């Protein structure tokens, strides 16, 4: 299979999803609640380099200034509020936002960030421009920085009205990662219990059952707001965005080269689709240009309107199956995100939406336009967007699953690339169970379909938007670190 990321193809194929989910386009992003989807401690190399471990990347049109686009990169996962003074960025690393504005998954513009010293007395220098070299080996842009700012200081303004911030912040990622892990390891079956057949968390009196594993923790954030015109190409308003961290190799001929060891595009791609251990390191070392060739085989086929196994294994058939099992209505499941009439005809739909692993952002769309599935999982990635629930719901409705004989999807495997669940409900690929309910139930059931994630701390109404860090446990208005269940 040969896929290529080009705007025309992606738009044509995914526009169907955008159309069916268009009612989501006006979700109130200005309320800036919280987002999930992340790569906290996901690979061996970054496990040992927390200052270079990207937990999340966000990209969105500035809610307060539609001429600007905001990019946020977080590192230092699970930063304890009680030890808040010990977290900073590494002066050895090169942090980068990379922007492709021609659709070839190769960076055309970069925003580079370097720190002058270790510890929270450090100052960040921001450079923006066309990269001297592209790919996994990079050099610092020449010239003077476009902006500088000290750690934890108020946002600073640089050239071209660019705003920048670096410092300790609340981790905006929302995910019941503990239960996710239990489902994968077989000690639980679903995020929420269903009768006696499926083990899961019980429903609480407030209409929730999930636990945000990341509540109470901080991260260190790099945030930048730049004029769209500095990043946008001449032929399209769409950009691809990803973040990288690189470390220097021994200089040669007086030139310092930085080699990438970490990257992130769309939320949780690596966590869900790349096998743990060395393969995740390899994915972090790689570049988006190679993603289609490298990782297409790790993504299941998408269901279509055509029955692929003679059992009614279509999008409509899956919707009917989920409904019959009581998983499309609360309290046992979330309503369907896509209508059963969803008209996909490409089994590569998920691959096209997920690869290359970059965030696709249409700069021409107003802030808060989610456009679920139009360019990827969503339009960029706003801070307050449900970045786990929406992917779960897309995957449960679209992923081909090899169920037992007699069940929709239970026909011969043949050439299908399907998740395995032949011993249902004890699926051999536990990811089938992860997506079965379509949500993790962290927020009250009444808000399940607003597609906002429900962070534990309020987002700010102005740049850098990301919530202030958790104060010391026990301080006024703190929630302390919640009991993890």
């Amino acid at each position, binding site marked *: 299979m040969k896929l290529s990321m080009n705007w025309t193809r992606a738009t044509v194929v995914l526009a169907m999803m955008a159309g069916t989910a268009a009612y989501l386009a006006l979700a109130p992003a200005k309320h800036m609640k919280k987002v999930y989807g992340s790569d906290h401690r996901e690979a061996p190399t970054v496990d040992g380099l927390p200052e270079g471990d990207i937990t999340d990347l966000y990209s969105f049109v500035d809610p307060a200034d539609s001429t600007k686009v905001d990019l946020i990169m977080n590192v230092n996962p699970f930063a304890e509020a009680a030890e808040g003074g010990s977290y900073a960025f590494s002066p050895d690393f090169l942090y980068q936002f990379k922007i492709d504005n021609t659709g070839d998954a190769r960076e055309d513009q970069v925003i580079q960030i370097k720190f002058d010293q270790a510890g929270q007395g450090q100052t960040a220098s921001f450079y923006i421009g066309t990269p001297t070299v592209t*790919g996994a*080996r990079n050099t610092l842009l020449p010239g003077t920085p476009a902006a500088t700012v000290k750690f934890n200081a108020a946002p600073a303004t640089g050239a071209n009205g660019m705003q920048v911030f670096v410092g300790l912040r609340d981790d905006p990622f929302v995910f019941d990662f503990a239960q996710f892990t239990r489902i994968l390891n077989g000690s639980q079956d679903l995020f929420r219990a269903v009768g006696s057949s499926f083990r899961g968390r019980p429903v609480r009196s407030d209409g929730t059952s999930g636990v945000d594993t990341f509540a109470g923790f901080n991260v260190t954030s790099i945030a930048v707001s730049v004029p769209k015109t500095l990043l946008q190409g001449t032929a399209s308003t769409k950009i691809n965005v990803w973040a990288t961290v690189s470390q220097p190799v021994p200089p040669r*001929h007086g030139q310092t080269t930085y080699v990438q060891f970490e990257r992130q595009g769309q939320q949780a791609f690596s966590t869900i689709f790349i096998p743990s251990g060395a393969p995740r390191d390899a994915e972090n070392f790689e570049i988006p240009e190679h993603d289609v060739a490298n990782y297409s085989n790790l993504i299941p086929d998408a269901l279509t309107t055509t029955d692929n196994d003679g059992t009614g294994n279509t999008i409509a058939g899956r919707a009917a199956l989920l409904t019959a099992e009581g998983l499309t209505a609360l309290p046992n499941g979330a309503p369907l995100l896509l209508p059963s009439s969803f008209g996909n005809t490409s089994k590569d739909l998920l691959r096209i939406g997920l690869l290359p692993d970059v965030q696709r952002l249409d700069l021409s769309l107003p802030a808060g336009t989610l456009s679920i599935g139009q360019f990827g999982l969503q339009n960029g990635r706003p801070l307050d967007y449900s970045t786990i629930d929406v992917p779960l719901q897309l995957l449960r409705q679209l992923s081909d699953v090899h169920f037992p004989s007699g069940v929709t999807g239970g026909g011969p495997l043949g050439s299908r690339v399907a998740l395995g669940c032949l011993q249902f409900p004890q699926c051999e690929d536990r990811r089938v169970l992860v997506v079965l309910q379509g949500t993790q139930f962290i927020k009250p059931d009444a808000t399940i379909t607003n597609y906002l994630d429900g962070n534990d701390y309020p987002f700010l109404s102005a740049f850098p938007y990301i919530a202030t860090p958790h104060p010391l446990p026990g301080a006024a208005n703190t929630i302390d670190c919640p009991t993890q269940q």
Partner: protein
Amino acid sequence: MTEIKRGVLVKSLGASLLALALVACGNGTPPVTLPPLGVSALNGSYVFTASGTSSSDGDYSVIGSFVTDGKGNITSGVADYNFGSGVDDNVPLTGTYTVSTGTATVTLTDGGSVNDTFTTTLVNSGTGQVRGFDGTGTGTLYPQVTSGFTAPGTYSFSLAGEGDGVISGSGEFTAAATGPFTAGNLTFTDAQTAQSYATIAGYLGTPETGGRGFANIEGNNLAYYVVGPNNIQMMGLDERILLNVPAQKQ
């Protein structure tokens, strides 16, 4: 050998070969083929090694492979650099080259746009001396044949490099199909200190792109490059030790 003397030797060799070709044609035996004089003379896959002292980088060793298109372009390549104070491994390469009067000048460009240049005299055997690498470094350029190579087997090897002092030594290992050594021995000297191992641990991995693989001998990490079905060149990847380890399959 000075450049002047080498130049004389090359010219003399060229004249001798020309004479040999004329004689050969005259007596009906197949003619001796002279190396072509243009860029097509360097066409295919090659492994290179070099070591020396750079004015900017200090002592270094490098090993790598590249593919030329016979038109003056290096279409792909990979290399490993050890500077004694740090290692830059698995470095992707592209580049260009020219050929003039039997001498190729090769420019290797890494993914960070750093250039290294060296020259080599093209000879019929294909194996030539690398000169002027990164200034004054020297080494060897080998034609590369990866087909027919399999990692498992018994190898004899030699050691040369810098550790606490000058390193020299030799040994043997047998790599199993899965990579680990099942037998082997090693004797070496580092700065007048001699050591001998009756058995050694290690492994020889399966080569990947460019015929490059990983090896480990008694805790020392190495990159290796397949030169031919029975020949690999290895280089140490540990900081503070510059090691060159050619190995021959038995």
